[in-house]
């Protein structure tokens, strides 16, 4: 296991970093639990989110939101389940939500194999790092950083169009159930991206991209990220190349897109138990090259660490692919019971639309190699350097075949050197085939996530032997 992992330690009282909110959330949780007519569990989430968005080189439509959400799941004795969510935390609101969850449960088909709600996990909760300023951003500092970043990009690119976003969030989750489980956890999310477009005669003539995610707003380092995105933007016109199979060096952003699909379409218990995942019946078998070791690592402080799952069980690291061998799906209490195994503590909230998804790994961590960027290019030799994919969708879920476009920095590499930008290509390729052809991993690691940190990853760059491109566009 690499990276810094905090030593679990026993909690001895309210977390002083969260103060009054801890008490308020716990009170709401207890009030809701006291209203349950039978068995059930409750999640209380308090969230603050800020998005500072740059468009056309100005800060545009900045956004702040604050919310309370309760998710209540009740079960009847026959194993009938109903779920309700509400933004109301007053007694009347809680009563209404419990009533509706119970009404849905009464009508639900019985689940004869429902195992009930879990008891608290044994062992101490890890104390994970937290940045409280993600809940109330330091606007003065961020404004200065944004202004400086715009200046850096314009200095490097000249006439340009700059886009980007900074997403900062602080969430507090309290979970309890009628088996006396009580857990709570806080999480900070900081995610930023820059898109730099060089303009020629007023029109985009090449773009670059850089992104980063982590638990700390200050660690985003917006100016250095801006510099990186500006360096990636091509300085010369892109050259068309024919579709076909090429060797590729996938940057972290591109790899994150592919592994996201592996997570929710491949590793989740639902697709595996139902038989339509490409990883169904593959447990214990090699599905990727030996160099690929992929973990679910909710403790990795280079990513977005998270202490508990939606059932209140303590999250913990586990292997997904070890030396290319698939080690098993993600499970919550229910799917684990069905599969006669134990929960991997990767439950997600039971309400729609999450409930349909089922348990999935949300904190991916790919073991790095030891190659620096020039060595990766040298290994690639002749092929494509891919920065980012766009609009990726599954063409054939059963084989994990995806399609999508390259975007914001696609280069032709020859003799281990970047030669020229190429026009964007559409890929149609299986994620597993790409991982089977993994040849070399970079040493550098970076955190990636979607804008709210639902899915995150810590990834290096990766050289793949073969990647199929099925068509191309004109820019």
């Amino acid at each position, binding site marked *: 296991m690499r990276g810094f992992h905090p030593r679990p330690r026993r909690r001895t009282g309210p977390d002083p970093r969260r103060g009054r909110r801890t008490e308020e959330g716990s009170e709401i949780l207890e009030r809701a639990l006291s209203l349950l007519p039978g068995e059930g569990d409750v999640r209380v989430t308090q969230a603050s989110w800020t998005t500072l968005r740059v468009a056309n080189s100005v800060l545009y439509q900045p956004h702040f939101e604050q*919310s309370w959400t309760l998710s209540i799941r009740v079960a009847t004795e026959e194993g009938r389940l109903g779920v309700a969510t509400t933004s*109301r935390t007053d007694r009347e609101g809680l009563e209404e939500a419990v009533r509706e969850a119970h009404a849905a449960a009464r009508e639900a088909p019985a689940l004869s194999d429902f195992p009930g709600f879990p008891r608290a996990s044994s062992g101490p909760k890890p104390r994970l790092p937290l940045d409280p300023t993600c809940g109330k951003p330091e606007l003065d500092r961020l404004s200065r950083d944004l202004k400086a970043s715009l200046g850096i990009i314009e200095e490097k690119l000249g006439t340009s169009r700059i886009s980007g976003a900074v997403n900062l969030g602080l969430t507090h989750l309290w979970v309890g159930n009628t088996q006396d489980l009580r857990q709570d956890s806080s999480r900070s999310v900081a995610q930023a991206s820059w898109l730099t477009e060089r303009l020629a005669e007023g029109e985009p003539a090449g773009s670059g991209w850089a992104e980063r995610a982590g638990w700390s707003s200050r660690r985003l380092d917006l100016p250095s990220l801006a510099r990186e995105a500006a360096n990636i933007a091509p300085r010369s016109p892109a050259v068309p190349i024919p579709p076909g199979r090429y060797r590729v060096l996938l940057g972290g952003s591109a790899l994150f897109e592919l592994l996201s699909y592996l997570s929710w379409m491949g590793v989740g218990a639902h697709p595996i138990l139902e038989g339509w995942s490409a990883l169904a019946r593959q447990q214990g078998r090699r599905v990727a090259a030996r160099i690929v070791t992929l973990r679910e690592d909710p403790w990795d402080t280079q990513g977005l660490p998270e202490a508990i799952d939606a059932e209140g069980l303590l999250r913990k690291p586990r292997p997904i692919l070890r030396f290319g061998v698939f080690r098993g799906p993600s499970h919550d209490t229910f799917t684990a019971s069905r599969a006669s195994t134990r929960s991997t503590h990767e439950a997600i909230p*039971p309400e729609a639309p999450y409930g*349909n998804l089922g348990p999935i790994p949300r904190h991916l961590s790919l073991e790095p190699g030891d190659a620096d960027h020039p060595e990766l290019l040298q290994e690639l030799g002749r092929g494509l350097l891919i920065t980012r994919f766009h609009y990726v969708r599954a063409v054939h879920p059963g084989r994990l075949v995806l399609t999508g476009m390259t975007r914001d920095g696609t280069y032709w590499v020859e003799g281990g050197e970047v030669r020229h930008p190429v026009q964007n290509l559409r890929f149609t390729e299986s994620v597993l085939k790409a991982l089977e052809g993994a040849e070399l991993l970079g040493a550098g690691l970076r955190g990636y996530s979607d804008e709210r940190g639902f899915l995150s990853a810590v990834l290096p760059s990766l050289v793949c032997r073969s990647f199929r491109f099925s068509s191309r566009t004109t820019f």
Partner: protein
Amino acid sequence: MEEILQRLVKGALRRGALYADARGVRGYRAQHLTVKNGQAESLTWSREDGVGLRVLREGGWGFAGTTCLTPSGLGEVVRQANSLARAVGRVRKNPVPQTPEPSGPQDGSYETSLREDPFGVETAEKLSLLKEAESRLHGTPEIKVGRAHMNCRTFEKLFLSSEGWSYRIKLTFVGAGLEATAIGQGEVQRRSYPTSFGGDFAQSGFEFIRQMDLLGHSAEVGRTARDLLSAPSAPRGTLPVVLGSDQLALQVHESVGHATELDRVLGYEAGFAGTSFLKVKDRGQLRYGSPEMEIVADATIPGSIGSFPWDDEGVPSRRYPLVQEGLLVGFLTSRETAARIGDPRSGATMRADGPLRTPLIRMTNINLEPGDHSPEELLEEARDGLYMETNRSWSIDDRRLNFQFGCEVGRRIIKGELGPLVRNPLYSGMTPEFWSRLVARGDPTTWHLWGLPNCGKGQPGQTMDVGHGAPWGLFRDVQVGGPA
């Protein structure tokens, strides 16, 4: 709620805002019911109340929203919206023009017309319908996953602006669908009804779901999923293609709807959603497709989830052309973007997916108008080609040019008639080139107004209800081919 909105707008003006509008949503209720393989996968009831405040200062926009309707929660909204708008000016000033709309609602009101309140129908009855429909999907052992779902939503939205416009609307949306997944012979195949990704949706009462006749269609859905397992692969090559209404609706969505959003055209969505191959100067000049291509934006159609009386800036909804006889003639606009290109009026497309989000330019009902060909005439004109319906995968580049769409079902067209089933059909192309090959549109019997409740856009992301009417369409020389 009215008092809360007034307080927010007044608070913003007191802090120096040039303009402010506030939206409140109360009584939002949603019910999501999914039955999978005879079991309840997700029976969720949701409730959300909240408010959002948008303020305009000299520097630019700021927005804040909350579900905390306490004095301190509301005070925080006013503070944050103003702080953010001020921050815009500190980074770089961004003066925002707005069209001077001639009129807005003064205490306007509107309510979805419905015959049967979906929340008046017992959950037991809804579940009974879903359970029976789902069970009929399993007429064959190859069906490993059957799923039947239903969504009902209702909410009251209130709007108030510092220009004195105000309205109150109560909207109700319903939708349902079926899905069968067959596994065998090394294949995974899925068939949906009436279309994929959740089914069809309308602004309506429960009568819309009753009319869908889920029970009457489910057995056939299961059989088709099974038959796809052993069907031959779709042909590859360049062929005449007839697209069914639901797939052509998605083609309109991706390659016309998004491409004509003026915020994308002007570069305001470059970072995430992308831009557009269209330029402002293309209006009235660019040939988007063949003369058969007639596309309108129409937010006034009763019963569609893309319809509304006023948008989230208070501008009255309307109908206007986007493409006429293949020529680009319009964009989807807001007060700000319309003013930026010198248009006198907004296209009334600004909507947010809830009180905690700022309004954006969103599609309304973007429709390809019907033509005059019967289905038989379209197939006869295609002669030898491929028919495709019901989307399975969709992807398009960030300027809305290069696309690739996969469908659930394909059928060979042989000598002007629908022939055998083929599996994994997909087609690809470049937007204007593809539309230039539209040679005939189906008549009104082939036209359907689909409700898509899952259009994604924005930072932070928003999921919007949009509508697309489309007939069957015949395209010449389309690149088709199955996945590797």
